[in-house]
């Protein structure tokens, strides 16, 4: 049954990620055009609840989506399996979540 659950989570987060990535991409293109700088980034994000929510969701989704994906790859291409694999997946998720949350805090909350 876990396979079905993991599948569901991965597809659901993919659906969620699709619009998020689109917006993010658009923003990157816009930002690059304007000349990328820390000031410009932070000016946009600091204290913005909207951006906090946006990137918060992004991080959450990706912290679910990517480890499940890596798990499939590890199983099929590296022949990992069993409890090991479950732990690795979980750890990857935690790592992404922690680093991601920290990054969001850095750009959004740093100046509060």
């Amino acid at each position: 049954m876990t396979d079905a659950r993991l599948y569901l989570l991965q597809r659901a987060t993919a659906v969620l990620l699709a619009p998020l990535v689109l917006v993010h991409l658009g923003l990157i293109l816009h930002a690059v055009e304007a000349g990328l700088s820390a000031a410009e980034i932070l000016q946009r994000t600091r204290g913005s609840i909207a951006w906090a929510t946006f990137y918060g969701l992004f991080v959450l989704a990706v912290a679910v989506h990517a480890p499940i994906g890596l798990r499939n790859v590890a199983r099929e291409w590296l022949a990992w399996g069993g409890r090991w694999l479950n732990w690795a997946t979980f750890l990857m998720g935690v790592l992404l979540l922690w680093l991601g949350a920290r990054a969001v805090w850095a750009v959004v909350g740093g100046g509060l």
Partner: protein
Amino acid sequence: MVENMLDVEIWRGKETGRFETYRVPNGSSQTILDVVTWVQRNVEPALAYRFACRVGMCGSCAMTVNGRPRWTCRSHVSKVVKSGRLRIEPLYNMPRIKDLVVDMTPFFEKWQAARGQFKPSITRFDPMERISPDSMRRRAVDAGIECINCGVCHAACDVVAWNNDYLGPAALNRSWTLANDERDADRGGLLSTISRSGGCHSCHTHGSCVEDCPVGLNPAAGIAGLKRMTLTGLLRGDLG
């Protein structure tokens, strides 16, 4: 008259072995199975290969020809040959018995593991169920049911090679037809079975099964259907 000749490399041996090259006369009506038969009858009496019906119904004769899995009794040489050359090997993804013959046991074991058999709800003493030929579910069954269990899709799918547990396209295609069979007594059980590790969720929609199925079935679409069905089941909470 100088006959047209084919250069045919054929696998001899088991898991380990080598390719032997034979020169085979190229006729106008000649299938790959005929080429192999010619070699057996004229050069290599002990050459092992499998066939039965010779018309694409039994799914016994599948081999890898020029790198691609096919039914050989209905593959005309002219449609497969590349600059006068053929390379004929056993099917991939199955243990080898001898020369061109593979052991299909694991393939059929997976078929069973996918609960690939009908579970009756009534007996021979009951009237048959009335089922409209146009209902969605019946049409889904019809679209997938004419499988000759040749194993070609199983040999074509890389996930089968990558993941030992994976049930494979043919087995899951059968599950799909059963999941749409209104007469089947245990659809819930079927769906939980194919939701286990190695079940339908292991398919990555490579589509090689569709590409190579000789009878034109679409296991990928059936597996996608199973994924949807199991998700509905999961969300409703009635999946084990």
